[in-house]
């Protein structure tokens, strides 16, 4: 292999390993944030909890309201964690030089789905804040641009999947 390609491969491995470590750190933060939200909601000793700039004063919530916030917080944290995990796996593949492979494209597709779900979670949070009666801390608008971004990622991943199929078939042709 030429030395320029070797240098590029080393650079790819170094940067993707660094980004993978950043994703691991972010995953850790998501878990910590989620645990803090659970403790705050279950302890019910005041304070605020929220996601996507939608905040609830815990003292103003009924038991049912706290349960709904807890359920949505669990779902949202799961979606976040899944999205970041797929990104982490993608950078993991890149660190092994596996860039245009079926596995990498699979992770990209999962990320696209996670982005769409992320956008839906945003909408649900704003909906919940309006449903739990006149929350003065709720945002005035919902911005869910991540949904079309997720759909575009899914479309791109689909094309790449087809290309990987063709690539694999070509390699089998003698």
């Amino acid at each position, binding site marked *: 292999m*030429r030395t*320029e390609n070797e240098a*590029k*491969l080393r650079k790819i491995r170094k940067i993707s390993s660094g980004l993978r470590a950043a994703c691991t750190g972010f995953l850790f933060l998501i878990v910590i944030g989620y645990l803090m939200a659970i403790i705050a909601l279950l302890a019910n000793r005041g304070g605020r909890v929220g996601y996507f700039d939608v905040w609830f004063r815990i003292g103003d919530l009924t038991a049912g309201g706290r349960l709904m916030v807890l359920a949505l917080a669990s779902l949202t944290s799961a979606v976040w964690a899944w999205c970041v995990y797929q990104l982490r796996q993608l950078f993991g593949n*890149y660190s092994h030089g596996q*860039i245009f492979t079926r596995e990498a494209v699979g992770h990209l597709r999962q990320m696209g789905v996670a982005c769409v779900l992320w956008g839906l979670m945003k909408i649900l949070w704003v909906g919940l804040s309006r449903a739990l009666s006149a929350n003065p801390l709720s945002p005035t608008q919902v911005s869910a641009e*991540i949904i079309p*971004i997720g759909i575009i990622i899914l479309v*791109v991943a689909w094309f790449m999947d087809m*290309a990987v199929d063709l690539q694999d078939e070509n390699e089998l042709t003698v």
Partner: protein
Amino acid sequence: MLLGNYSRGEIFTKGSAEQIRQWGLACALWGVARYAIQFLPRVPAIRDSFKPGEVQGLGLMVNGLIIVAISWFMEMAAEMREEQDLIV
């Protein structure tokens, strides 16, 4: 442009990776614009549509930067592949 490349079967190429990078940059700039627009206090329609403390556009910026990062890897890999295809 990207879908144009795909219609010609140019999927894992430098050109397609570059288009993805441009898209990522556009998303990041969109996020920056959303963030900056809330600092226009003299425009009541804009000022009144934001609550204090809302961080507008941060998600878009981060998404855009992630797309740019992924496209960088694709571009490097496409370059290496094209160079190897030239080797006899």
